[in-house]
């Protein structure tokens, strides 16, 4: 836009403010002195072309082209809807397998696996720390035999599988590969994702076992192994979701996630692998919060920032290394127990924002998740929510339909500016690895979480049914997901059988090899891990052996 047009627009705005706006305000004041997004960005009354002053047209660009603000692919949902990927996991492999098959029968197009706390934290189901937790919040996996039951009758060359697991991710990946080899699959045909993002665990979700250094090395090994052997597999899902759920602002969510990305890329580059050889398979995971337009701007800004980081900072030349692809989940922390059916509406709006923001796959939360893990009924409703958006609303017909919106574009650019400010700050302070160990991110997340709690308390942040429109009448009775008390017995029986049936000599030789590999950071931990799971190693065998070498991480909590 030329300077003359810009001046004319600004003049007109001034004139409008002095006339129409001023006169109207005399009759009726605005509801608040100032308006802010949920993430504390001030917002104006109205946005105009003058607000695109700092957004060059090439930063908006076109979908499927650098800097990918408008989407990673040129045709987006016109070619294929996002993958509808409801997470599931409870009980034993058999129990979750039934839920997977139910969801697939209901039209789900991808699989996503939730593991129980012992599996996430590297304890076998018969360890004392696992008492009460086996199969409760996810599926229990101790050995390859459990994974075989989990994916029984599901063609893994045809459906993509995501596994939400972190400190023990490489063991699950090893089991997945072992299962694929056993079934005679071509590893290069497997598509899916293992979360394996350990840095955000120290920052936010707090599922960690080992100290930071060996943990990051494991992630590096997953990335390099996968880049060489599994062309379609995402070996990491660099996640903002948990940072947000731990209480961060949407800006912190994206900026901290990209700070973690930088660490992972640097670690892999140190092995001598070229950026374009692994970056195309880096994947992301963000939350979709309640502030509709802010979330859309956040996703668009994340894509633009990623593209610039990969190109300018890391010298990527393949456009596929610069396009950010992300899984999205609606915000669990926004769900309420009172008037729980209202959660369906919250989730619908968040899911709509996720689709307008251009997600590649989506999980919508169940209305009952403020009580317990979701029932089949809640998951069906959540899946139907996505299906209505995808198939009835027609929002999928046009790529990035909010592109060009003065407000969304201005907020996208503002997000980009602030994200790079934070990344620069992290660089100046010595990088994310150092700052994680100093609790720098953790403190900022705790601050925003506290601020949010106070805003809910004062009513400044309205939550229907909690601090607004509170209804004394009891909610309709809810049937929550039952926990099958026989789970632990059934699970432990199989784990003990695997231990009893394995070849003890071969097993102990392989375990010795694991120790050797673990002690040499130049080795890759994946090949020996695959051999070990095939030989009947349990999750606990790996973790206890490595804990003896690497030690345990303990944080100094900030609050």
């Amino acid at each position, binding site marked *: 836009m030329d300077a003359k047009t810009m001046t004319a627009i600004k003049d007109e705005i001034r004139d409008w403010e002095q006339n129409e706006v001023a006169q109207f305000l005399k009759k009726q004041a605005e509801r608040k002195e100032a308006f802010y997004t949920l993430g504390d960005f001030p917002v104006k009354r109205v946005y105009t072309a003058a607000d695109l002053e700092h957004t060059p047209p090439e930063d908006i660009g076109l979908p499927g082209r650098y800097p990918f603000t408008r989407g990673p692919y040129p045709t987006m949902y016109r070619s294929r809807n996002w993958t509808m990927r409801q997470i599931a996991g409870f009980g034993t492999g058999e129990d979750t397998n039934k839920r997977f098959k139910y969801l697939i029968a209901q039209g789900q197009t991808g699989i996503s696996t939730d593991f129980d706390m012992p599996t996430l934290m590297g304890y076998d189901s018969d360890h004392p720390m696992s008492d009460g937790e086996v199969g409760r919040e996810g599926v229990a996996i101790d050995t390859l035999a459990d994974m075989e039951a989990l994916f029984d009758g599901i063609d893994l060359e045809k459906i993509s599988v995501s596994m939400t697991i972190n400190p023990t991710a490489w063991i699950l990946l090893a089991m997945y590969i072992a299962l694929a080899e056993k079934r005679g699959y071509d590893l290069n045909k497997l598509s899916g994702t293992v979360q394996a993002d350990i840095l955000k665990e120290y920052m936010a979700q707090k599922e960690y076992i080992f100290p930071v250094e060996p943990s990051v090395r494991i992630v590096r090994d997953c990335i390099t192994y996968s880049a060489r052997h599994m062309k379609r597999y995402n070996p990491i899902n660099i996640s903002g979701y948990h940072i947000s759920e731990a209480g961060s602002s949407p800006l912190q969510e994206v900026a901290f996630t990209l700070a973690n990305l930088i660490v992972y890329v640097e670690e892999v580059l140190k092995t001598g692998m070229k950026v374009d050889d692994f970056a195309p398979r880096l994947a992301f995971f963000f939350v979709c919060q309640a502030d509709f337009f802010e979330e859309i701007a956040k996703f668009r800004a994340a894509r633009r920032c990623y593209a610039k980081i990969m190109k300018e900072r890391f010298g990527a030349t393949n456009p596929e290394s610069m396009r950010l692809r992300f899984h999205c989940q609606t915000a669990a922390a926004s769900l*309420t127990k009172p008037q729980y059916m209202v959660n369906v509406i919250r989730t619908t709006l968040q899911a709509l924002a996720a689709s307008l923001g251009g997600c590649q796959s989506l999980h919508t939360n169940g209305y009952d998740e403020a009580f317990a893990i979701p029932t089949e009924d809640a998951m069906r409703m959540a899946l139907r929510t996505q299906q209505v958006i995808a198939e009835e609303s027609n929002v999928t017909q046009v790529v990035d339909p909010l592109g060009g919106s003065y407000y969304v574009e201005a907020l996208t650019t503002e997000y980009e500016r602030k994200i790079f400010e934070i990344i620069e700050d992290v660089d100046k302070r010595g990088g994310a690895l150092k700052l994680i160990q100093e609790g720098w991110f953790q403190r900022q997340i705790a601050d925003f979480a506290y601020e949010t709690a106070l805003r*809910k308390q004062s009513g400044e942040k309205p939550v229907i049914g909690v601090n607004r429109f509170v209804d004394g009448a009891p909610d309709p009775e809810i049937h929550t997901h039952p926990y099958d008390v026989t789970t632990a017995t059934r699970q432990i029986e199989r784990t003990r059988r695997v231990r009893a049936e394995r070849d003890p000599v071969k097993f102990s030789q392989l375990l010795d090899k694991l120790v050797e590999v673990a002690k040499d950071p130049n080795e890759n931990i994946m090949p020996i891990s695959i051999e070990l799971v095939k030989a009947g190693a349990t999750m606990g065998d790996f973790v206890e052996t490595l804990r003896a070498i690497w030690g345990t991480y303990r944080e100094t909590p900030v609050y």
Partner: protein
Amino acid sequence: MTQPIRVLLAKVGLDGHDRGVRVVARALRDAGMDVIYSGLHRTPEEVVDAAVQEDVDILGVSLLSGVQMTVFPKIFKLLDQKGVDDLIVVAGGVMPDEDVVELKKMGVREVLLQDVPPKTIVETLTRLVDERGAR
């Protein structure tokens, strides 16, 4: 001058969800209470030992992993073994209504679920200590 209320906040088991417990820790501290936070991944034994050693008025256990019906019986059994009968035990986190009923029967004085405002938590704990009286 009365002594500040002493509180031990604890995370038990493998659950890492600590957003809520840290918000509560800060709110109680800002309200002038003495707050000790256990950090993550503690066992019931560690928590009960710490509550006794630190001579706290209140033990608050935060759980978002669904294991409340395993953890609280263990805690009460340990307290019983140690002959502790004046410790106020409260629960916090995400749990179904039927468990809340059971926990109260077991001796949990209050169950503070998600979205309870910080000032309500402060008021509740203050009331529980007032009701118990000086010791």
